């Protein structure tokens, strides 16, 4: 059997979650925590006629990257669209909280999040939401002690509550195949109608939420080529910068003023009537 070294794989976006971690960690070496052999899958999928996976689509490992001790977490896009449910959410949150404990005990450890996620897993809606809220809190807690680096490399992209989680990280790295947005184009079209956004208009979508556009807007911090060495190098550079507060989240009052000055029409756009896709219960 021939083994293909991961670094020679030209495109990162085709790699599975475990392959991504092997490609980014020093020497391809890591130790997986609560892996598939621990057999903790989602208890909620089978009753809804879906097949659970014994790692719930979240891979948590410890290893090193660019010489820095790291807990690295990858969401497997191939399982339920990278959606976050009870078990996967608890894995991410618990790992980040343990990393913070470790930092407080003078054993510094940074975090790497490979985020390919549609957001909350609809079949576990409320537990997914609660899980993401806890992940967000854990990111902010760790961010004050060690860098938390997010990578959005595609092909799924990072949406919903997980786009908020990415945004809370110290540093975000994207590639040309990554997309980062709160609401996916299909959801916007469904909610607001095709006049608001045509989800089939690929060029428009990439200009709107593609990582290249996000880099130009200053939402993400690095835009790199879609291969493991480029991404690993960017991660190393981010870790070398150490603890920082992400600028994108600061100066809320000034951002509000900017929004009013530069973006919002001076008059109410409609007559106040609900035209399409009203949500009133």
């Amino acid at each position, binding site marked *: 059997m021939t083994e293909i070294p991961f670094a020679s794989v030209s495109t990162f976006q085709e790699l599975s979650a475990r392959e991504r971690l092997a490609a980014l960690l020093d020497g391809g070496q890591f130790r997986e925590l609560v892996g598939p052999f621990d057999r903790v899958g989602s208890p909620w999928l089978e*009753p809804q006629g879906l097949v659970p996976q014994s790692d719930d689509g979240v891979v948590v490992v410890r290893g090193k990257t660019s010489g820095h001790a790291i807990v690295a977490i990858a969401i497997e896009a191939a399982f339920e669209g990278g959606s976050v449910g009870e078990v996967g959410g608890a894995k991410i949150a618990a790992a980040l909280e343990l990393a913070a404990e470790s930092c407080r005990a003078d054993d510094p450890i940074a975090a790497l999040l490979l985020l390919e996620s549609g957001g909350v897993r609809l079949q576990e809606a409320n537990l997914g*939401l609660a899980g993401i809220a806890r992940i967000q809190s854990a990111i*902010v807690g760790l961010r004050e002690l060690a860098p938390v680096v997010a990578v959005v490399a595609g092909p799924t992209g990072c949406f919903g509550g997980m786009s908020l989680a990415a945004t809370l990280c110290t540093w975000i790295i994207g590639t040309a195949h990554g997309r980062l947005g709160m609401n996916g184009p299909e959801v916007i079209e469904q909610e*607001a109608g095709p006049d608001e956004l045509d989800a089939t208009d690929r060029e428009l979508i990439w200009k709107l939420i593609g990582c290249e556009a996000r880099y130009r807007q200053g939402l993400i911090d690095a835009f790199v080529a879609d291969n493991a060495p480029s991404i690993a190098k960017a991660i190393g550079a981010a870790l070398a910068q150490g603890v920082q507060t992400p600028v994108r989240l600061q100066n809320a009052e000034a951002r509000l003023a900017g929004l009013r000055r530069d973006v919002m029409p001076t008059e109410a756009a409609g007559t106040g009537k609900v035209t399409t896709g009203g949500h009133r219960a």
Partner: protein
Amino acid sequence: MTTEASTGRGGLWLEALAGHSAKTVMDTRSILEATVNLGDPSEPVLALTVTPDPASRLPRAAHGEFGLEQAWTIAARIRQSINEDAARGMRRPILAIVDTPGQAFGRLEEQQCISVACAAAVDAYIAARRAGHPLLAFIVGRAISGSFLAHGLQAQRILAINGDGVIMHAMSPQSIARITRRTVEEVIEQAASSMPMSYSIENAHRLGVVHTLIEGISPEAPIPASVSIVKEALCRTLTEIRDEAKRGVRYAARVKDNPSRVGTATIERLMREQWNPDHLKRNQG
């Protein structure tokens, strides 16, 4: 007092709990605040809510959604209150009163990075909690998805009225009905068969996501008797939050005895056991 048509449930409860009119925050008509006094001797609590603004300059956020303006306003107000209180050497509790149909869905919203605006609100709530402001959330209507993440879900304790129209979910039943081409009734009925998928606030309570259910009052009409019941519950919860903060209770402790949270409890235990490398040696004997 403003009328129900313009304030929605959030505004009604805010003014009823405060006993006076609410004011708009930073000229954002859809964000209201008031001071709610809890306990005896009474303690001031900063209460905030999102409310419909039919004349919103951003049309996708006219019905009480959490949009760009709402998210940045909440973030700015929470940051301001952290700074004000730090200067006065106090840490006022913050109460998020929740009834929103979700985040604003729109092209402009994505272009202007609504994820950053909502994350800034999340970040501000977390900063307040970490600075020592007790955070409470009180659901009086719809607690949906990104809007609930940005306004409510960072609270140490979530209370809800067990009554008509009080629901929690990742997507409104109307949206799922549109996407799956079913009626709203069908969506709600089918979701009820799975506890986390259910819209029922009772199920959210069983899962431990909602901590306290307030029974026997109407969420639509905050009459004085209901207001005192809610204020008592909020007051008790405040004491619990402070006790728990003193004891440093871990997340694992909160889920370990809940039969509906075996998945979370198992992960908590295994992740901690396996965190340090020497567990392998131990397991091997």
